[in-house]
C-alpha cells in the first residue's frame, strides 16, 4: 500500500523532470541527425546522394546546377552525407521546425567568376 | 540455403502437418512467394527447440490448397493474408475474412502477386 510513498515524497522535494519547453530549450546533441544540409559551392552534381536515398527525396540536375531536397520525404537516415564524395552534404544538428505546407528546398550553384576560369585555362 | 527444407506436394500437406503436430512442433508461420512463372511457392515453417523445419508446397496460381487451420488454429491469420495478397486459393479456413482482412474493396486485388497492371483512364472508352 505504501510502496509508492518513497517515490512520491522524493518527487515532492526534487526539481521537475521536464523542462519549461518554449522558454528553456535543450541544445541539440552532437551528431544528432536533425536535417540534411548542403554546401552548394562544393557540389559536383554527381547525383550519388540522389540514387542512394531510400526515400527518393533528393533531386539533382546537372545542367541547371541545382540540388533539391524535399524535407518532407526525407527520413533522416544520413546515407547522402555518408556517400557524398566531396563531403558537401551533411547532417545539421538542429531539427527542422514544423510547417503549414509541404515544400522542397532548392539550391542553385552560382556560376564561378570568369577570372578563375582564365587562370586554370 | 534454407536448413531442413522439404519439398512436398499439396496432397501430402495435411498429413505432414498432422505429423508435425504429433511431434509437438510449434507453427511459426507460412510464407508465400510468387515465382513469376504462374506458380506460387508456399513455405510452412515449424519450430522445435529453436530448430526450424520447413515444407515447400508448389501450386499453380488458381489451384486449391487445403487450410491447416483445423490442425493449427494460429495459421488462420497467415492463410487469410496469403489469400488476399497473393490470391492463393486456400479452402476450409477456420475464420474466413473473405478478402477483407488487410485490404478494402477499393484496393487492387492481390497486390503482392506478379501481374500486369493496366491503368484505365477514367472516362476513356
Amino acid at each position: 500500500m505504501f510502496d509508492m510513498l518513497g517515490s512520491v515524497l522524493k518527487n515532492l522535494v526534487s526539481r521537475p523532470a521536464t523542462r519549461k519547453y518554449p522558454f528553456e530549450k535543450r541544445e541539440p546533441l552532437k551528431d544528432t541527425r536533425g536535417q540534411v544540409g548542403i554546401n552548394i559551392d562544393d557540389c559536383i552534381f554527381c547525383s550519388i546522394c540522389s540514387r542512394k536515398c531510400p526515400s527518393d527525396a533528393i533531386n539533382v540536375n546537372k545542367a541547371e546546377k541545382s540540388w533539391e531536397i524535399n524535407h518532407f520525404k526525407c527520413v533522416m537516415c544520413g546515407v547522402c552525407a555518408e556517400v557524398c564524395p566531396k563531403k558537401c552534404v551533411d547532417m545539421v544538428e538542429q531539427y527542422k521546425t514544423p510547417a503549414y505546407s509541404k515544400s522542397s528546398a532548392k539550391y542553385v550553384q552560382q556560376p564561378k567568376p570568369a577570372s578563375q576560369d582564365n587562370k586554370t585555362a | 540455403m534454407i536448413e531442413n527444407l522439404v519439398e512436398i506436394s499439396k496432397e501430402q500437406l495435411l498429413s505432414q502437418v498432422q505429423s508435425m503436430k504429433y511431434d509437438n512442433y510449434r507453427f511459426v508461420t507460412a510464407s508465400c512467394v510468387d515465382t513469376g512463372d504462374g506458380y506460387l511457392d508456399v513455405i510452412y515453417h515449424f519450430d522445435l527447440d529453436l530448430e526450424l523445419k520447413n515444407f515447400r508446397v508448389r501450386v499453380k496460381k488458381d489451384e486449391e490448397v487445403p487450410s491447416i487451420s483445423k490442425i493449427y488454429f494460429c495459421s488462420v491469420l497467415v492463410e487469410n493474408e496469403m489469400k488476399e495478397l497473393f490470391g492463393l486459393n486456400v479452402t476450409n479456413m477456420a475464420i474466413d475474412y473473405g478478402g477483407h482482412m488487410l485490404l478494402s474493396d477499393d484496393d487492387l486485388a492481390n497486390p503482392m502477386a506478379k501481374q500486369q497492371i493496366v491503368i484505365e483512364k477514367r472516362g476513356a472508352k
Partner: protein
Amino acid sequence: MSRSVIPFGPQHPVLPEPLHLKLVMEDEKIVEAIPAIGYVHRGLEKLTEVKEYTQNVFVVERICGICSFMHAMAYCQGIESLMEIQIPDRARYLRVIWAELHRIHSHLLWLGLLADAFGFESLFMQVWRNREKVMDIMEETAGSRVIISTNAIGGTRRDISKDMLLKIRVIVDEIKEDMKQLEPVFFNDYTVKHRLVGVGVLTSEDAYSLGAVGPMARASGISQDLRTTGYAAYGELDFEPVVEKDGDSYARTMVRLKEVYQSVSLIKQAIANIPEGEISVPVKGNPNGEVIARVEQPRGEVLYYLKGNGTKNLERLRVRTPTFANIPTLLKMLPGSQLADVPVLILTIDPCISCTER
C-alpha cells in the same frame, strides 16, 4: 440470455494502436472475440521489391517504431548469411548493446502503458521518466531517438566511444536502481495485484499450440528465447531466459520487468567484453538464394524470409512479426473474461498493430 456485440477499437483510449475487436457479450462476460485488422496496412513488403537491398535496411526499420533496431538487425543478419559476410567482432557487440537498449525502452514503455491501463497514472509517469534516460543514450550514440538507423549490411554505421560506453554503464545502473524502487509497486501493491493476478490465464499447452512467442510464451512456462541460439554476440554473454509459470497477466508483468534487469546485465557484460577494431566491412555483389533469419525482439521472435535473385533488388522479403503470432492467444484468453479486463488483456500481449500489418 441474449447476446450483444460490442465493437472494441479501432480508436480506444487504452491503446493508440488501431486494433479492432468484435466482442460477443453475454451480460458482462465475453463469449467470443473476433479480431479485425487492416487499418494501418502500408504494403511495406511490396515496397521492398522496388528498393535496393541496401536501402531496404531503412524500410524494414520503419515497420515498427519500438523495435526498429531489431528489425534492421534481423534483416542485415539474413543478408549477411546469404552473402557469406563475416562482420567484425566490434560490430556484433555494438549490435547487442543497441538491441538491449531497445529492449529496455520497449519494456519500460509497456510497463508504463500497463500502469496507465489500470489507472495508475503516477506509476506510468515514474516508469516513463526512466525510459527517457534510454532515449537520451540513443540520441547521443546514434543521432536519433527511436529509429536509430545504425545498422548496415556488413556491420554498423556508427561507433560508440569509450567515454560513452562508460557513461552508458552508469546510466543503465541508474535505471536498474530506479526500477528496483518501483518494483514493489508492481509486485506487491494491492490494487495492482487485484487487476493482474489470475487475469487471462494461458496454460503452457495452449500457449505452445497457439504459437505464442516471446514474453507471452515465457510467462506461461515455455523457456523459449532465440538469443540462446547465440546470434550476434549473445553466444559469448552469460544469461538465462526469464521464465514464469503462472501464465496470467501478473506473470507477464514479472517477465518483462525482470527482462529489463537482464538487459542491463547484458549491456554491462557487452561493454566489459567489447573488442577494439573495425565496425564494418565493405559489401560487394548482390544477394542470391533464400534464407531465413530470426531474432528475439522485445515482443518475441521475428522471422525474416529473404529471397534474392542476383540483382540488387530482392525477389521477396517476408516478415512475420511477434504480434502476428500473439493475436491467436488473445482469442483464447478473451472468451470467459470480464469486459473490464479487456484493456489489460489486450495490453499484456504487447500489441504492435503497425508491425502486424506492415
